[in-house]
């Protein structure tokens, strides 16, 4: 069920609507966050980019509906969710989806904006990746740069599929741990 129509009226009262530029800036601020959210549904980088594009086009077109970033982010996630599901339905092979109830919860709990993706955290991420073994780096490269699914990463590296997923799991845990240690986020900032 799609519960949020594009033309749903503003809930706000007399607040000043955002202009196109402000909407565009906010969307760009939220780009990584929103793309990650879309990707969690469509699970394909190109499709995620495409859905993000559609959301941007709609948002900029209807910029006068938004009064602040929270409002925009909420709207964008809902439209992105609907657009993602529509895109998946147009693709025959991708029918396995998280339950609607789960998608709803994730939508509500997803961070509203990209929180402090600072150059420090990016540098820390790269530094941590540089410390990884060549094998781990190659897995990351194949999975996230080449966009290969685990089965094809396994095939490329002549490993079992389960081995690859276990390795990826360890890599994620290790990376987060490493970055946190590097940044020592006493202030509760976002470390990757």
């Amino acid at each position, binding site marked *: 069920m799609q519960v949020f129509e594009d033309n749903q009226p503003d809930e706000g009262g007399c607040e000043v609507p955002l202009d*196109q*530029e402000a909407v*565009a*800036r*906010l969307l*760009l601020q939220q*780009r*990584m966050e929103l*793309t*990650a*959210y879309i*990707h*969690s549904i469509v*699970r394909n*980088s*190109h499709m995620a*980019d*495409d859905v*993000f*594009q559609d959301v*941007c*086009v709609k948002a900029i077109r209807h910029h006068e509906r938004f009064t602040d970033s*929270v409002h925009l982010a909420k709207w964008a996630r809902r439209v992105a969710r609907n657009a993602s599901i529509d895109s998946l339905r147009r693709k025959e092979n991708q029918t*396995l989806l998280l*339950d609607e*109830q*789960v998608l709803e*919860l*994730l939508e509500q*709990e*997803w*961070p*509203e904006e*990209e*929180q402090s*993706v600072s*150059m420090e955290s*990016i540098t820390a*991420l790269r530094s941590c*990746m540089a410390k990884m073994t060549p094998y781990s780096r190659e897995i*990351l*490269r194949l*999975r*996230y*740069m080449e966009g290969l*699914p*685990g089965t094809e990463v396994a095939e490329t590296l002549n490993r079992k*599929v389960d081995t690859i*997923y276990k390795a990826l*799991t*360890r890599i*994620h*845990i290790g990376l*987060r*741990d490493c970055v*946190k240690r590097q940044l020592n986020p006493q202030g*509760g900032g*976002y*470390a*990757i």
Partner: protein
Amino acid sequence: MKSRFIPPSLSENHEEFIERALRYLDGAADETELARLNEELAGDADRRNVFISLCRDAQLIHESQVDSGDDKVSRLRFVKAAQDLAGLGRRRIVTRPVVAIALIATLVFAASLFVIQSGGIRREIPVLVVTEAKPPVATLREVVGVRWHEKQPALQVGALLTTGVLRLEEGLIVLETERGVSITLEGPAEFEMKSAVVTRLNGGRLTAQVSKQGRGFIVESAALNLADLGTAFGVEVSGDQTRIAVFDGEVEVDKPTASGDVARRTPVREGAAVVSTVKQDTIDRVKFRDVAAGFERSRRMSAGVIEIQGDAVFQTAGAPEDPYTYTDSSKILILPERQAVPLESDLEVDLIDSGRVVIAGDGLEALVEAGEDGIHLDSFLVQFNRSQITEKRKSPAKNIRRRGGVRFGREVAGVIVDSTRLRETDDMFGAPSFSDNPDHQERRAKGIGSELRGLEKGDEIGLSKDRRTLTFTLSTGGDRDQIRVLLKR
């Protein structure tokens, strides 16, 4: 209000769940795994938190991996740049080139529509805006009276365009390619930018003004292909027919072949026009004037003039560049002179600020600053001729007044109205055939003005607040009146 999201630590306790989530995220989870994942996510906020973190981390890793090459604009830098921009507000930003590109893209994003096209999925109607994966090939410089095709999202001035198709039902748009080619498209039209160099016109009318840097620019169509050799030309595609007129310089045309091989090329020079149809094997010469007449408006826009008002007229296609060959005093003539002239040191001019000036005889003085890195300027000449001497009239008529205005596509950097300054800037900014004319060179070498060319007492000029519209009220004196207008590129 939502609480701030704090990414959780991923521990070994989460290992099994993370593995399941990773399988789901690359589409490898089966129904059983999905059901389990649904159950975990629905009932456990901590798991949802971990799932969200995993998705965000994967995205960040993906972006840091994709953009690690030196030759690409980093998405991470793009994000950072966007954040900087969002934090700073719109302002001029001077920074490293790679970040500057991202910032430009950011501004364009703000001004138009944003399209991520990192390959894989090609949109039926590309909206044509930049990402690091799809670098810009052109910038939208002007939009006049446009009704876009129903499937073409409206673009705004300043949009950076990637490869793709543009469709408009009516009106004109001006694009400038990354290699300095100014293209005016007149609707109804369908135009494809295959790259910054290769384009295709499927229907409608196009004119192009090609700078030195843009030489080699190509326009394909069903019936004829055109390769530019440094020039200005127009192409019109109507049904299966293509007509080409060359306003300046020279182009080569050929018939498209089924194999894609290059067929025999036919040179078409300035002042000539050709036509062919899809079914025709030949390329026929036709009257230049007949073809060129259809391009007047778009040709003017390609040259950088958006609108002409009052008694002003734009130089006709095929007419000489030398302003001294014109004698008509019924109109104020606008002549394009030079494009992209580098200015490496400050230049004295007469006017740079907006406002209205009545020439009173005392000298005007202003400075166009070149800045540390230099700037590039386009030049135009506005000319009002003295009345002609005839058998009946033995001396030029005086006090004939004409009013007019020009709206340019770019900001006016400076205006020169003084005879001496006009003469001193002829070499640099005068039309090549004028500057290179031995008679004029000799006059300049001797330090005498070819005549009193500048404005005289009582003449008026005005520059609009946005510095893009120049208005003038000119009276004939003993000689012609000239104004040199310098535009920022």
